[in-house]
């Protein structure tokens, strides 16, 4: 099982790098498809969400994957959304894929949105460094 975990982590780290061009440590935390977290998630590193979180998510890089769902705030340096978020997003770099659905304000200093994404809310710009607290 651990070999598998290592492998999937490596694959995911590569995936994240491919997505954001960001430097990602190998110790990415993964909320799997079958995991539901009721409460807050705090991470100094990177977190990738395939499952669901009912609560706030804080991390350096936060990726909400296609099937991922967050019911709460997403706060980080880099935030990438492919799934759905019902809550505010605060990050220096925010990228939203077309499969994403975001209901809530997006505070950012650089925002990328693919055509087709569903966005509802205001998108105020803030200069870097973005205060994320």
């Amino acid at each position: 099982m651990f070999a598998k975990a290592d492998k999937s982590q490596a694959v995911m780290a590569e995936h994240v790098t491919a997505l954001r061009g960001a430097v990602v440590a190998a110790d990415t935390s993964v909320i799997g498809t079958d995991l539901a977290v009721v409460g807050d998630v705090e991470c100094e590193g990177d977190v990738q969400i395939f499952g669901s979180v009912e609560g706030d998510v804080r991390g350096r890089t936060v990726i909400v994957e296609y099937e991922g769902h967050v019911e709460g705030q997403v706060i980080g340096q880099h935030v990438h959304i492919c799934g759905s978020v019902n809550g505010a997003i605060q990050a220096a770099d925010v990228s939203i894929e077309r499969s994403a659905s975001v209901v809530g304000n997006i505070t950012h200093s650089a925002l990328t949105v693919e055509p087709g994404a569903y966005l509802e809310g205001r998108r105020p710009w803030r200069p870097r460094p973005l205060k994320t607290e």
Partner: protein
Amino acid sequence: MFSKSERAPGEAMSSPSEPPRTPSTAASTAASPSVIGADLKITGNLESAGDIQIDGQVEGDIHGRSVTVGEGADVKGAIIADNARVCGTLSGQVRASSVTIAKTAKATGDIIHKTLSIEAGAFLEGQVKRLEAEVPKSAAQPTAAKPAAAPAKAPPSATSSNSGAGAKPTS
């Protein structure tokens, strides 16, 4: 990233210019365990139908099929699973069919099990009980061998009960 806009949402994408993005498909993620990394802290409960590997901090209860508390991990709360393996610090009840306490573990709380294995050197403080009836399942695991009577027989959660202190079983 807009070069990818041709594909349908959710579709696995692998254009020649970029690495394969297999993790996005359900097929590849279903089998992979959830990993709570060393730098991750969760305040709240976790529920999973699959495997959870915890290397960080969790303040809350954990329900899963297979739960592993890694060496550097710190869990404050109950673990309810089919298989539970504790290598790190745990403060709370463990309720699982199969429980393994590794020698690096520091577990405080009761252990309710059907099969228990404790490595020599493990720190264990709390009562160790064997559950004759079926261990109450995590909601996600509908094996339903003897579903009816199980929950009622579960003892009240007494994570801080240290009445069984000094238990130093060897196996």
